[in-house]
């Protein structure tokens, strides 16, 4: 019973049953229509035959009156298979005819009738159905001419057999066909279910099978696979963050702890203790900054809060950041100049884009000094339209980044100078890259010969009016 219950619940079984029902109904309607038509044809043929017979008898009556009619009936009664004749006088006495059993029908109105009677034929009782026509002749004579309906009954049997046969055929062939088709249709679904089961069981690298025929199931599998990839990326990102937190927060935490311990052990005067505490606060502020930056990156990468994106002017954002950093660059002996300055609007967050621009400029000021110490540093910031996108370019004439390191430098906590004398967490560029991705853009590092050219590419927001501001 449970096996059957299971079978009933499978989509394959339901499909098969549904298809069979449809087939059976269809075959029934078709055969019914054929039977109805055949019966109509048979009946009209029969009526015609009877009418012909009547016409010829009427001819006999016209030529020789009732006597000749009776003779003709007597003659025809012998040998005419299936025909029914009966002629009676006004006392309902049979004058001529071959089927006295239809005598009760004489009581009916003149016209067409169907009449059922029992006939003894070779000691065998037969129930006979007949189509008859009753005439009222002058002198109280009554005439019945008719034909039995054996043909129609035979046809009904033939049709009934055909129906049974075709039902059987439909059941067998349709059942097999529907089963095969549903297996074919449902096998990919079963395969997907199995693959999903294996993925859930922990084989996270597995993907759903795609048969390459580009049907609905393939498209579904492809979309699910894309979703799995995205989830995988997010999970990897998360794992990377936690690994990095473990690795890179431990170092400053250890330093913090060691410094506090040492101060506790060795500091003698209140001044020494105060100094140690101040250092502790400084160190923990650094930790908080790293933590905030990591959170920002994680949020930006998760693509959160699309509602905070609005229509903003990129060139104004960049100009504000350049203005903010101009005095800093000045103090560092670097010339910070605004290059090409296209008026462009993008869909984004002013806060995040400002932070991205600030990080890029900050990086350039800190790390973009010319290798030759005497040469003047110059940082050129430009906003330029390139096709459907806009590029925010921060180019310096410093020592640049070796080609091999260009991708690595975008990762979290990666700092190229191993000594780490310059301040920084190694998160600045990763944050910019995350902000770029959140805005549907990308960050790339290019060679400025000499120096580094950092390009933040963003999609342009086309104004409804078609022009930029």
């Amino acid at each position, binding site marked *: 019973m449970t096996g059957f219950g299971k079978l009933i619940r499978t989509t394959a079984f339901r499909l098969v049953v549904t298809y069979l029902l449809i087939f059976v109904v269809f075959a029934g309607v078709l055969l019914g229509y054929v039977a109805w038509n055949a019966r109509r044809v048979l009946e009209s043929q029969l009526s015609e035959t009877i009418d012909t017979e009547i016409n010829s008898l009427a001819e006999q009556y016209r030529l020789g009156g009732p006597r000749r009619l009776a003779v003709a009936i007597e003659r025809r009664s012998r040998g005419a298979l299936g025909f029914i004749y009966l002629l009676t006088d006004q006392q309902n006495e049979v004058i001529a005819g071959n089927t006295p059993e239809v005598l009760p029908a004489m009581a009916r109105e003149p016209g067409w009738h169907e009449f059922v009677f029992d006939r003894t034929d070779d000691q065998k009782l037969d129930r006979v159905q007949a189509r008859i026509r009753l005439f009222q002749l002058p002198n109280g004579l009554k005439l019945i001419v008719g034909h039995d309906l054996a043909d129609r009954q035979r046809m009904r049997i033939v049709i009934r057999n055909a129906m049974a046969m075709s039902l059987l055929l439909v059941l067998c062939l349709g059942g097999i066909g529907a089963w095969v088709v549903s297996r074919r249709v449902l096998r990919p679904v079963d395969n997907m279910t199995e693959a999903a089961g294996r993925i859930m069981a922990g084989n996270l690298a597995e993907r759903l099978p795609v048969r390459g025929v580009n049907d609905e199931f393939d498209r579904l599998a492809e979309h699910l696979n894309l979703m799995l990839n995205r989830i995988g990326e997010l999970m990897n990102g998360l794992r990377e963050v936690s690994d990095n937190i473990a690795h890179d927060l431990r170092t400053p935490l250890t330093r913090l702890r060691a410094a506090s311990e040492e101060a506790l052990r060795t500091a003698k005067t209140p001044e020494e203790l105060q100094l140690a505490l101040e250092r502790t606060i400084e160190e923990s502020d650094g930790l908080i900054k790293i933590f905030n930056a990591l959170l920002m990156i994680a949020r930006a990468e998760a693509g959160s809060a699309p509602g905070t994106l609005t229509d903003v002017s990129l060139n104004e954002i960049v100009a504000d950041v350049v203005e903010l950093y101009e005095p800093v660059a000045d*103090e560092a002996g670097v010339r910070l100049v605004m290059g090409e300055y296209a008026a462009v609007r993008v869909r984004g967050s002013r806060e995040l884009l400002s932070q991205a621009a600030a990080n890029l400029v900050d990086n350039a000021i800190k790390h973009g000094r010319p290798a030759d110490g005497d040469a003047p540093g110059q940082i050129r910031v430009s906003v330029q339209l390139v096709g459907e996108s806009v590029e925010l370019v921060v180019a310096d004439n410093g020592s640049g980044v070796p080609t091999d390191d260009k991708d690595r430098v975008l990762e979290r906590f990666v700092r190229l100078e191993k000594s780490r004398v310059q301040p920084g967490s190694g998160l600045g560029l990763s944050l910019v890259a995350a902000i770029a991705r959140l805005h549907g853009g990308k960050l790339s590092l290019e060679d400025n010969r000499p120096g580094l050219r950092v390009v933040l590419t963003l999609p342009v927001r086309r104004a409804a009016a078609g022009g930029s501001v």
Partner: protein
Amino acid sequence: MTMKILVVEDDADAANYLIKGLRESGHVVDHAADGEHGLEMALTSPYDVAVVDRMLPRRDGLSLISAVRAEGRELPILILSALGQVDDRVLGLRAGSDDYLSKPYAFTELLARVEALGRRRANTPSQTVYRVADLEMDRLSHRVTRGRTEIDLQPREFRLLEYLMRNAGQVVTRTMLLEHVWDYHFDPQTNVIDVHVSRLRSKIDKNFDRPLLHTVRGAGYMIRDGLR
């Protein structure tokens, strides 16, 4: 200036640290440990400023603020939150808080902001001329003079000085400047504010024997008459 401050914070250690610090700075402090209690106190006693934690038992901080605003109270409220992201801050301000500070914070930062909030209500906001000693700023004609000397300022320097002078005699932190003068809420890795302030200082204090723009160590900046 002594202020009456309401602190709504459920964490006992954090609350004690806050209350102690605010009292040492000369303020009167009341404490509520949950949102319902906090709301009741905010509606029944007059306070100059309220400091409200975002996540509270019984009634969360945002709902407390909305309820206070629904009663038509203009009590200045600073919201504290462990969720320091841009959209959280926007939510906090939208609910009706006047300022937002994310945890962990420096006490000096909190104190400066609380005092700025309390003062904002005391000051007439439509004041058109700010004056500190012989430094004078006319906000309508955008003229700044010190003594008889006219000082030429860039637009951003003008706004920087304007914010400092509006809060004259009080500490203004770097993040407060970054938020109010530049409208940035992120942390630039370099201390860009210091450079801007020192530029401003060279314009208003250089060549004058009495410095007005002071650096407050470990906190920020303050403009005041040095002899007072």
